[in-house]
């Protein structure tokens, strides 16, 4: 009897593995997706000066987590996907009224100013980052966007541009949930 069970063991183990395989094939699973290590972390510590030539103040850790939901967006004038997401971000900020904080990443101030003049400026504050800020925020490239709750905890992190379907599927539901 025990021998019988032992002989069944390979089959049972195979079924367990096959179950995992089946799960792994589910169409909404993307094995390439990289989760962010930043989600659910408190606001990183940073202090960014304003961008020279802009009338806007910079910002620091202390400016976040004051009971208000905030979006933080890393951008640069030399980054093409940033240009692509810009109208979407502008529209999102205007529609929802959620303050959008910008972090201008490794950019020449004049180029950043010209870029914002050309495309419009949806940001309520913009900090100039020479690279240190990106390290604190765990950013690997631009654009990247974070959503922070009223306590200043990071609740959402997206690498790459915020475009189209993504706003409807992820960003807006997250903003709605946080503002309730």
């Amino acid at each position, binding site marked *: 009897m025990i*021998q*019988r069970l032992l*002989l*069944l063991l*390979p*089959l049972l183990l*195979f*079924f367990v*593995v*096959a179950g*995992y*395989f*089946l*799960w*792994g*094939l589910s*169409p909404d*699973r993307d*094995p*390439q*997706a*990289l*989760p962010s290590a930043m989600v659910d972390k408190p606001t990183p510590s940073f202090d960014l000066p304003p961008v020279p030539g802009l009338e806007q103040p910079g910002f620091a850790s202390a400016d976040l987590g004051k009971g208000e939901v905030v979006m933080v967006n890393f951008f640069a004038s030399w980054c093409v996907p940033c240009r692509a997401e810009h109208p979407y971000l502008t529209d999102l900020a205007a529609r929802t009224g959620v303050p959008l904080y910008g972090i201008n990443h490794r950019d020449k101030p004049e180029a950043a100013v010209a870029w914002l003049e050309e495309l419009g400026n949806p940001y309520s504050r913009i900090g100039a980052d020479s690279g240190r800020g990106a390290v604190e925020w765990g950013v690997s490239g631009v654009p990247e966007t974070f959503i922070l709750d009223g306590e200043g905890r990071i609740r959402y992190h997206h690498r790459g541009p915020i475009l189209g379907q993504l706003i409807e599927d992820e960003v807006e539901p997250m903003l709605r949930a946080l503002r309730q």
Partner: protein
Amino acid sequence: MIAELGHFALILALLTAVVQGSLPMVGAARGYMPWMSLAAPAALMQLVLVALSFAALTYVYVVSDFTVVNVAENSHSAKPMLYKVTGVWGNHEGSMVLWILILALFGSMVAFFGGNLPPSLKARVLGVQAWIGIGFLLFTLLTSNPFLRVFPAPADGRDLNPLLQDPGLAFHPPLLYAGYVGFSMAFSFAIAALIEGKLDAAWARWVRPWTLLAWAFLTAGIALGSWWAYYELGWGGWWFWDPVENVSFMPWLLGTALLHSAIVVEKRDALKIWTVLLAILTFSLSLMGTFIVRSGLLTSVHAFATDPERGFFILVLLLITVGGSLLLFALRAPVLKPGGLFAPISREGGMVLNNLFLAAACATVFLGTLYPLFLEAIDGSKVSVGPPFYNVTFVPLMVPLLFVMALGPLMPWKRADLAGVFARLKLAALGALAGAAITLYLREGWPVLPAAAMGLVAWLFVASLVEWCERIKLFRAPLGDSWRRARNLPRAAHGMTLAHAGMAIAAAGMIGASVWNLEEVRNLRPGESMQVAGYDYRFDGVEQIQGPNYLADRAQITVTRDGRPVAVLTPEKRLYPVQNMPTTEAAIHTTWVVDLYAVIGDSDGRGGWAVRIFHEPLVPWIWIGCIVMVLGSFVSLSDRRLRIGAPSRKAKAVPAGGHPAPAE
């Protein structure tokens, strides 16, 4: 027209496989000879049809017929002819046709050489082979048809991924598939034995050569793939524990175990159930490899264009093949009467130990490979399992394996005297001490662990040779006598010595490569040099060259040692315009003890270039060891006993086999 012919030939091959998989099986069950004897001609017919289909696909690649989608997506008119041909299997669809071709080739070899098999066993083996064929033919025809047309035809093709345009990788897939598919023979024999309810020494004798052949191909295939990664990716490494590498390595580990356990079945009529299970699992792991690589299940640096629908199809195939065979195993294995008992200290005891270590090693690789999937399914977190995991799990299993590998061949069947075995290994112990001492002498800083590791491989190497020398009485009897003995020794014995010694050489290379490799990156201007491990690398400059389908920056680096010239290295940075893909071509100079390895990086725009130098000690030994192992298997395969498939009277008189007992 030609493409359609290939398509129809593939459909006809499917129909032939259906006939081959049904009538002979029924015939074998009913004892009806005419139906059983259908199997062999059907297997040959399959080969003809699949070969026709493969030839048609090759033809459309050679003439660059871009009305065929597969050609348009994977070839280009300017591609060198070699890569037009190898491009046939450089993509998912074409590689499936190659897979089926090799399967048909093995099937027809049984039909051709299996004259001395009992008719019912032969019919069943070919029947099971046909079942596998049906599965893969259906898969190819339904989800991955390589003969689809496109209209209007594009003006030119999208080219083959430049990384694959390389002689090393051109022949990697055929060898690897020959290994994977070769294990289907052991699988078919195992299933046939389960159906027949009979498994004896003769069965093991038929299974051995097929397993050995598959093992040789798989060893060569893995080594070639590793060699390719070593010189083409420009990372200086030769094994990355990447899921795709692991899935080819797992069948190798279990196949090695199978190779040895089949000997025990043959000699001692024991370990039958375990051997059948190994045969099933080895091929199942090969199938699982196919599934993992083509379904996009795991994140890997090299994977085919993936498609969930295909993944689902292969999973169903996997469920039927593996699930079905394991179910059959659970139901029928008790029928296989276990044979003689045996003592723990004996040749067969050594084989059990070998099997335990190899199976455990395979289990760790399996866990490491699939752990990210398991974890993600349970709590959604993503991890990757890399070398640190394998260093603490896999390597400790290899150390005792290499140690006992030296003892096994010296132990007689049935009962061995451990003290006597060790007494005969004095020379090996001396070799181990010498290996460790040389390591300590050559390397500064008292490297205790590497020295112990080198001592271990020296132990194995010397022990393998000692066993061989004893058997031919080298230095004990007159030379002429030894020569006569060596000639009379079964080829399988020479094969074993070669394979074991090859393993020792390869292991030494792996240890050296992982412990002592050096890497230096510098930004150099023409005329400047850098020193790495006593070699002086002078950067002479970069010139632009135009290849057949690429542009390249070719650097020239002159290597000298103490002022004496050693080599001129010309690493390249290529750009393939059609896919707009850059590749690095490392330049390697080997002294057979160390590889001097140079890669050229980007220009800094002010006349300087990033030059990356790797100092790779003992890496060439990895490839040499693998070649020796493959050579050993072919020497063993040429053994008269395996060739003929039945023991001759003479072979019985001298206790022959892959691991014969010491003569006196």
